[in-house]
């Protein structure tokens, strides 16, 4: 499996990470090498194997629907790069 330049650019779009052409070329090489190596898994027949989705193999416990953290607006906004004391501020989304 080769990850070509077009695929690299597509993944970069999906990942919301912009990359320049030089980086894309490097990633093309690295990702191709990594996926060639990963393809070793196809040697294994796993048709009748159930996927492991949780290591603990227990059902998640229920908890009471209670508010634990109250009045923490300041805390929530404390690390935001831009806010107006009530909300996070982002570039205009709706025209």
């Amino acid at each position: 499996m080769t990850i070509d330049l077009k695929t690299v650019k597509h993944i970069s779009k999906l990942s919301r990470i912009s990359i320049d052409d030089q980086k894309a070329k490097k990633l093309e090489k690295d990702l191709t090498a990594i996926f060639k190596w990963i393809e070793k898994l196809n040697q294994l027949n796993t048709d009748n194997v159930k996927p492991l989705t949780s290591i603990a193999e227990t059902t998640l416990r229920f908890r009471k629907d209670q508010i634990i953290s109250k009045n923490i607006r300041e805390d929530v906004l404390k690390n935001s790069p831009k806010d107006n004391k009530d909300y996070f501020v982002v570039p205009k989304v709706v025209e």
Partner: protein
Amino acid sequence: MTDLIDLTLTQLVKKIKSKDISSKDITSIYIERSKSSKKLNTYVEETFDEALENSKRFDASPDFQKKLPGIPLAVKDLFCTKNVKTTASSKILENFVPTYESTVTQNLWNSGAILLGKLNCDEFAMGSSNETSHFGNVISPIDDNLVPGGSSGGSASALAAKLTPATIGTDTGGSIRQPASFTGTVGLKPTYGSCSRYGIVAFASSLDQAGPMTRDVEDCALLLEVISSFDPKDSTSIDFKRPHYYSELNKNIKGKKIGIPKEYRVEDMPDEIEKLWEKGKEYLKDCGAEIIDISLPHTNYALPAYYIVAPAEASSNLARYDGVKYGFRVEGENLIDMYEKTRSQGFGDEVKRRIMIGTYVLSSGYYDAYYLKAQKVRKLIKNDFDDAFNKVDAILTPSTPSSAFKVGEKTDDPVSMYLNDIFTVPVNLAGLPGISIPAGLDKNNYPLGLQLIGKPFDEQGILDIAYSMEEKINFKFKTNDWWIK
């Protein structure tokens, strides 16, 4: 008389309890030594002034019932610490100051410990050499220009250089055990669900575990006892009766059955590691344990499966870094442009690479071929261990396929870097406890480690075996403090 800096954690606790030394004295000693060890680049955030104040406060009204009375500790910068900068060694979090405390570090402070500072690591714990940190690579005290391993490289280096009496790291695919092995120290990854993940910067949520990194097995048991707890704030935390790992530590391992998996004898493994493994078996026999050959047939597939599962989870976890809620932001022409620029400039190359692998294997049309396949292989690997543990109590393997390597040696070849974790990754995939203990030196006098893998929740079992082996191995390694100016 032993130098105070040479005391192990448990010895130090005794000295403080017997009032031979004060918290302030020992805290000052560690601060001074840390200040003169900048060359190793272990600290990314120092809280020395606060530590000194806290030590004075402890001495003014000491509580000697606590398990870590007035003990100064530096921790990996992946644990959120309230009002103390927490960066995960990433540019994207370079100014992040948590408003809450991780459960594991809270357990340390509740037991009387004092924060010395935050330790360097690979960016978002993604790396095996501590070379992916935004704050520069960490140097091992073992030798100039040698990597300490990773991702808990700052922790391992600070521990081995005696800049902290003990420390904690996190382990997603070997990030505690591999650097412990590289630096001649002890590192334990607990069973998944043993230590709370609350407040730990997330990498791969089904694999991440916090664990102790210490100078010897006794220290390891004590620190595990402090940090392991059931935590309702972590939905995967498991409520089981945790033993008193330290007081129940026991050298009698007569009749224990130890498995030797033939698949861990990998191609190109240096002779000295093979010999070390043989020696390990002899030590165990001397202790009265029985050695049994076992097979873990899917071992070879663990690493490729890991490099699907871990990046997939990472790409989801790291989607939160968007320049909106916290962290670094680069303004853009519109919202999407802002996301793309922020993430492009905020993440380092290895993190971007893994996000992209993860995004790809989860993307439409590829999910079944990669992600589902990897989860099935993960099941086979877990089944291998389940079968093995029907026959044996624990498994002995080398910790790493080689000793520590030079800075820059593997940075251009991601696959060769990933192969470093070949013996540690299966343990995370199966959620098992594993411990690395120093077991010998290679031809360059670099430390080598052996790993013990236990049944789920049997940390006590592998600690006991490690404890009895430690006595036989009698590992002695003293650095000459070459990095101190």
